[in-house]
């Protein structure tokens, strides 16, 4: 039952502005993921909420009460470290029991709570082992157990599965999600892996160079990125981003890319919507995800002829590089649709999946076609 709020939080490390005027409200039982490249301030923000880092300005509120002057121990927030940070000289049981013992719980109570958490995490038969005898996944289960056992106000996780191998990571990801649904505590999770963020989050908070870029559900940040950074950070392969200019031809709008006179057909209202949004000629970028680039092996109306470049076969689909007007655009096609480099194909851009941005500021013009 915890509500976390950040108000105008600022933090400097010397000349480095790590957190820049951060404002954020995290609702009770919400699973929020801080996403960003390394060094973007996401971990620092998390550590500041936990009390492991001081802030220079602003307020951190837990259930409406400012806590920025409280020590970590007095905030009652659990934290799962990337390095697990298990106590090497204690068994798994003693590790999980540590916070309870520190708070002087009765022995029988400790025993009961540790056993029940161990049961949820399926580590009951590992309780007598020391961390050095555990695998990475089991160590992280113990670390999560240590966080869960005292029923904290909130759970903070700093890249908790970053140190695990790919397969285990997928497994633990599902487990963390299952656990959150079952336990339902307010959770903040830090990662640089956008797949992890998309699959876990109720809401994603995207940070870049200490500045909050966008807050939204996974669908929102994917479908309606607020700026070029978010558009290119979320989604794999990366969203195509090209300089664009808009003209008219007949009843349709034409969007030219690459400056070589190559134009794609867009609905007529595109021009009006763009000028209403304040788009300036020469300051316009078109973003389209690879699945928004439609490809046909034969000539079709509205499609233009292009040459295929490198093909990355990924099993379920292929990623094909297309050379269009001097720009390289990547398209996602069904496997085997394009047989090899150099093949002539026909392509168009799906207007519904097109995003327009101001090139200079990076801001999205929020045009929906």
């Amino acid at each position, binding site marked *: 039952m915890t509500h976390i709020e950040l108000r105008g939080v600022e933090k400097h490390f010397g000349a480095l502005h790590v957190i820049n005027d951060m404002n954020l409200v995290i609702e009770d039982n919400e699973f929020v993921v801080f996403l960003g490249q390394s060094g973007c301030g996401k971990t620092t923000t998390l550590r500041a909420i*936990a009390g492991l880092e001081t802030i220079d300005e602003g307020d951190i509120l837990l259930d409406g009460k400012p806590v920025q002057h409280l020590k970590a*121990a007095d905030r*009652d927030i659990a934290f799962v470290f990337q390095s697990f940070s298990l106590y090497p000289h204690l068994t798994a049981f003693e590790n999980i029991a*540590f*916070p309870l013992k520190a708070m002087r719980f009765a022995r029988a109570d400790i025993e009961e709570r540790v056993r029940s958490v161990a049961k949820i995490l399926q580590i009951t038969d590992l309780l007598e082992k020391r961390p050095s005898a555990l695998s990475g996944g089991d160590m992280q289960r113990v670390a999560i157990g*240590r966080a869960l056992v005292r029923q904290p106000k909130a759970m903070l996780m700093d890249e908790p599965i970053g140190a695990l191998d790919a397969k285990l990571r997928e497994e633990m990801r599902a487990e963390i999600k299952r656990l959150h649904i079952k336990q339902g505590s307010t959770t903040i999770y830090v990662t640089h892996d956008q797949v992890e963020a998309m699959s876990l989050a109720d809401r994603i908070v995207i940070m870049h160079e200490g500045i909050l870029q966008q807050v939204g559900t996974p669908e929102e940040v994917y479908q309606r990125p607020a700026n070029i950074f978010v558009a290119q950070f979320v989604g794999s392969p990366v969203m195509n981003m090209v300089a664009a200019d808009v003209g008219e031809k007949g009843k349709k709008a034409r969007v030219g890319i690459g400056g070589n006179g190559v134009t794609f057909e867009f609905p007529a209202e595109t021009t009006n919507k763009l000028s209403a949004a304040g788009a300036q000629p020469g300051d316009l970028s078109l973003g389209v995800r690879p699945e928004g680039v439609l490809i046909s092996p034969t000539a079709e109306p509205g499609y233009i002829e292009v040459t295929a470049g490198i093909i990355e076969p990924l099993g379920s689909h292929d990623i094909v590089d297309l050379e269009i007007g001097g720009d390289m655009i990547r398209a996602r096609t069904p496997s085997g649709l394009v047989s090899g480099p150099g093949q002539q194909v026909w392509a168009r851009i799906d207007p519904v999946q097109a995003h327009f941005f101001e090139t200079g500021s990076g801001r999205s013009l929020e045009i929906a076609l």
Partner: protein
Amino acid sequence: MAVLAKLDAGSPAARRGWSDLTIRNAFIIPTIAFLIIFNIFPLIYSLGFSFTEYRASLNRPAVFVGLANYRDLLSDPDIWRNFTITAKYVIISVGGQMLVGFGLALLLNRTFPFKGLITTLLLLPMMLSMAVVGLFWRLLWDPSWGPINYALGLGKFEWLSHPTNALFAVAITDIWMWSPFVMLLSLAGLSAVPQHLYEAAAIDRAGTWYTFRRITLPLVAPLLLIALIFRTMEAFKTFDLPFIMSAQSVETVAITLYQMAFQSWDTGRASALAYIVLIVVVCITNIYVKYLNRLRER
């Protein structure tokens, strides 16, 4: 030629015509020879003496007496008194060093200005010669004009000429000299405790004392134990400080041994006492080492 061809022509050994084996022997044989002549031979020779009635000062052959020397020594109340004094000395001196040394290490285990300089200054006592330390502290403890009596307002308190007081005075001097050693090992242990464990403990709502008792102490324990082993061994056979400072009024085993061997020239009996001391030290050390190995297993 066939043998030479097998050697790597580029290796320095081949160029000088020395094989690896020759080089190895050239380094090892002198060392082994030194060890045998100056350590192993006297050890065995003195073991032989310990079963005889022999005086190195007289030109008379040793007479074999079996275990008589050991029997005499172990039933001699004076020897037991020496061991008791030594035990007291070990407990006071090593206990003091562990407390002061570990305490200093805890204070130094953080960042503050001039940390390196202060640490180096604190290490100075242990770099001094034992004889120099003994002579200086004899002046400090002097009853009529020593600064210690002056500072404590004790008048003409007799430190070094009174056996019990001298024991304390020598032990305190030893603490002053060797606490830095414990401090050095403790600092190494403390800085090896990962910072993230302290963060985890803070998150787990552990207080300062609880964190110290459950995290710091267990993780530093192996190095503390090593310091304890070294200092116990040294303190048990302490000789220089009591010899220089107290004119032999602190009768530790080593002092008695010296008197027996080089003042009364009772070589056979002294050899037996030396062996008893050796066995005691080995036993104590073994207890520590066993405990250390148990700590290491975790």
